[in-house]
C-alpha cells in the first residue's frame, strides 16, 4: 500500500526525470539551464527525504544558486544560435540512445542485483542517530576528512587562478610588454 512518502518520491522522481530529459532535448541553451535548475531542486527534495538536510541546502546554494547562474552568464554572453547543425555521423543520435539504454540496464542490474541478496535494497533504513545532520557532517568532516577538506580549499584557489589567467587573455600582456 503506497504511503505518502512513496507518492512524494514517485512525483519528485518523475519531475526530475522529465527535467533531465528536457535539459537534453531543449532547443535553446537557456531552457536547458532552467530545466537543470528544476532537476537540481527535485534532487534537493530527494535529499531531504533521505534526511540529509545539510547536503540539500548546499545543493541549492552551490549548484542551483552559483553553478547554474555561472552557466546563464556564459550563455547570455556567448549568445549561441538556437539551431544546431546536424552532426557529421548520420546515425549518432539513435546509436547514443541505444547505448544509453544498454548503460541503464547495466546500472540497474549492477546496483540492485548486488544489494538485493543481502536484503538492504528492500529493508527499512536504520533509525537516524540523535542530533542534527549538520553537526554529524561537521564532526566527520573536521576529524576524519580534514585533509580532503584542506585540499579542496587549495583546489578552489587553483580554479580561481586558472579562471583569472584564462579570462585575462593575451592582448593585455602584449600591451604591457611593448
Amino acid at each position, binding site marked *: 500500500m503506497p504511503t505518502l512518502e512513496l507518492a512524494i518520491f514517485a512525483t519528485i522522481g518523475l519531475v526530475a526525470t522529465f527535467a533531465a530529459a528536457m535539459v537534453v532535448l531543449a532547443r535553446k541553451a537557456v531552457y536547458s539551464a532552467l530545466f537543470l535548475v528544476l532537476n537540481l531542486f527535485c534532487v534537493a527534495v530527494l535529499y531531504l527525504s*533521505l534526511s540529509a538536510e545539510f547536503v540539500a541546502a548546499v545543493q541549492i546554494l552551490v549548484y542551483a544558486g552559483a553553478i547554474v547562474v555561472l552557466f546563464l552568464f556564459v550563455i547570455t554572453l556567448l549568445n549561441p544560435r538556437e539551431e544546431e547543425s546536424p552532426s557529421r555521423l548520420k546515425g549518432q543520435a539513435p546509436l*547514443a540512445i541505444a547505448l544509453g539504454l544498454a*548503460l541503464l540496464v547495466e546500472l540497474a542490474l549492477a*546496483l*540492485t542485483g548486488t544489494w538485493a541478496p543481502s536484503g538492504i535494497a528492500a529493508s527499512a*533504513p536504520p533509525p537516524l542517530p540523535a542530533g542534527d545532520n549538520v553537526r554529524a557532517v561537521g564532526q566527520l568532516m573536521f576529524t576524519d576528512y580534514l585533509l580532503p577538506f584542506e585540499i579542496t580549499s587549495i583546489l578552489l584557489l587553483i580554479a580561481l587562478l586558472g579562471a583569472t589567467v584564462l579570462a585575462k587573455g593575451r592582448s593585455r600582456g602584449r600591451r604591457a610588454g611593448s
Partner: protein
Amino acid sequence: MIAPLSFYLILSAVLFTVGAVGVLVRKNPLVMFMCVELMLNAANLSFVAFARYLGSVAGQVFVFFVMTIAAAEVVVGLAIIVTIYRSKANVDVDEMSTLKG
C-alpha cells in the same frame, strides 16, 4: 517509511543515463557541460541514498566534496569555453577538432 534503496538507485541510474546520452547527442559545449552536471548529480543522489541506508554520514561528506569539485570544474571549463569563443564566432564541438587555439 521512505522509499526502498533500490528505488533511489534506479532513479540515480536513469538520471545518469539521461546525462550520458545528452553528452553524446548535443553539440553545444554549454549544454554538454550541463549534462555532465546531471551525471554528477545522479552520482551524488546514490551517495546520499547509501549514506542513509548504511547509517554512515561519510556519503554526505563525499557529496560535499563532489559539489566543491564540480564548482571548480565548471569555473575552469566555462573560462575555457569563453576563451575559445573569443577566437571563433560559433561554438560547436564538432568544429573544434584541432588543438590549435
